[in-house]
């Protein structure tokens, strides 16, 4: 009861902030919405990678399904409920949800065969499915193929972004803290013991996967109707790594940590861009900051070597 009240309050707060922020500097507004979208992506993936211990490396694929799915819907049928802004917004939310459901279905198709595989194989297979999804979009004329898809109406605003972000966090946290949700953690800790205690490990793995995919789809839809243009290369392996880094930095198994990491890593590329323009710094340093992947990969290595539990995660025990 308490948590639902909190959720409601958060939604109201989002509404208030949203109306107040309409005059905000567009650059900062951009970053803010970006943070919200990344929170949805990271908190969702954390359910799979963090709480259930399955290493999925293709999350951007589900984001793509949601992005393209919802975009196609609003572009083709946006007027179906009427042409007033309320009607169009309503349809937009419907499209977002349908995009999420589509992503969840794809998550089901990908998850059922893949989740039988152990750690390293699962990572590669999910990576592969990411590429397959991207490939399908690239070959689909109705979705703009290699040219990308544009012209979506700017429906996404602070309210919708953070309303869904709050919803995502609420779902993940309340689920994991229930008795039902302890099953996810049991699967992560010891699959064999979990099965022996009557927990259907496959069900939990697939469930986490499908839920995370749903939220990624919503995030994709939000993104598409914010940038108003999407391109297949925006949902490639690099994007998946972006999300994974957020989960790892935040600490797998800590939703707060992951949200914090999402904030940090949304701001970081902007900071780097700023640094790369400072004339006073040496040329090579400026070049490095332009390529955030070098720094991200170094971050991954250093994190694993020094603080694998990230910011807020629980340190996994060493093998005996």
């Amino acid at each position: 009861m308490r948590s639902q009240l909190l959720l409601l309050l958060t939604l109201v707060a989002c509404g208030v902030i949203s109306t107040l922020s309409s005059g905000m500097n567009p650059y900062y507004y951009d970053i803010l919405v970006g943070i919200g979208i990344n929170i949805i992506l990271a908190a969702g993936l954390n359910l799979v990678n963090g709480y259930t211990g399955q290493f999925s490396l293709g999350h951007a694929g589900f984001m793509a399904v949601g992005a393209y799915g919802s975009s196609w819907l609003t572009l083709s049928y946006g007027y179906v409920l009427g042409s007033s802004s309320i009607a169009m917004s309503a349809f937009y939310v419907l499209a977002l949800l349908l995009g999420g459901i589509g992503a969840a279905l794809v998550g089901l198709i990908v998850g059922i065969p893949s989740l039988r595989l152990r750690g390293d194989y699962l990572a590669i297979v999910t990576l592969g499915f990411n590429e397959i999804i991207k490939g399908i979009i690239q070959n689909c004329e109705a979705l703009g193929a290699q040219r990308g898809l544009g012209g979506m109406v700017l429906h996404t605003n602070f309210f919708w972004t953070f309303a869904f972000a709050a919803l995502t966090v609420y779902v993940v946290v309340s689920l994991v803290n229930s008795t039902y949700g302890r099953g996810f953690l049991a699967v992560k800790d010891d699959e064999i013991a979990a099965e022996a205690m009557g927990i259907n490990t496959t069900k939990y793995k697939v469930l986490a996967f499908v839920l995370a995919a749903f939220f990624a789809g919503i995030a994709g839809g939000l993104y598409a109707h914010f940038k108003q243009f999407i391109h297949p290369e925006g949902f490639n392996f690099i994007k998946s790594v972006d999300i994974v880094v957020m989960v790892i930095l935040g600490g797998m198994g800590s939703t707060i940590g992951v949200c914090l990491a999402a904030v940090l890593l949304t701001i970081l590329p902007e900071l780097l861009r700023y640094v790369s323009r400072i004339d006073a710094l040496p040329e090579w340093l400026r070049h490095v900051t332009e390529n955030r992947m070098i720094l991200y990969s170094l971050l991954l290595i250093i994190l694993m070597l020094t603080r694998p539990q990230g910011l807020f995660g629980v340190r996994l025990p060493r093998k005996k």
Partner: protein
Amino acid sequence: MSALLDLNQVTVQFGGLKAVSDVSLQIHTGELVGLIGPNGAGKTTVFNLITGVYRPTMGSIRFANKAVSGQRPYKITARGIARTFQNIRLFGSLTVFDNVRAACNLHLRHGISQALLRGPKFSREEADIEGQVMELLEIFGLEKERDNHCRSLPYGDQRRLEIVRALATKPKLLLLDEPAAGMNPTEKAELMKLIRFTQEKFGLAVLLVEHDMKVVMGICQRIVVLDYGKKIAEGPPEEIRCNPKVIAAYLGT
């Protein structure tokens, strides 16, 4: 009275090795049976066969008159068989309380939608579970540790926690794999009492693998002896103690 658990000529083969060969054994409700044998005799393998980790190459396993061989472990647990492990397999990142709570999932009446919406049904059941878990923890004297991480418990307590966790699945048959390992004599005596107590309280059948002969002879009504994957003797403790084949298996001829 038909057996609760019925293993009939069960064999499991890995490559060329028959880890368990032509083993038949029956356990009835309320019985406390011991399973002993030298190291490598196949005792844990029998557990793994019963609980579905391995599938028998030959023979059949029936529980409560229904076949269980080849089913997934969680389904077998749902039928009413629970176990502990030779090498402790607790849920390492969870607290003592949550380790047991996780095992309550099996009999959960509500599903994911309730877990999210958190209506009255959810709250009631969560309160129920709180009560059940605490009751089990109290029997084993672990209630004060409830919020501690399970890994911070001393070894003996961790072993007992595993038993508590298994009991949370409301089994009819409990398989205990060396529950007394690493305990001192006082703890062992305490454990023997606890096993008998829970058996009576919950009406369980128990199959116990143990190396400590005092424990085995002390509480088991019947003992089955394995050697090299085969059953070499079966009977009450007094018989087994003097059985020349058993002695030879342990001491070597």
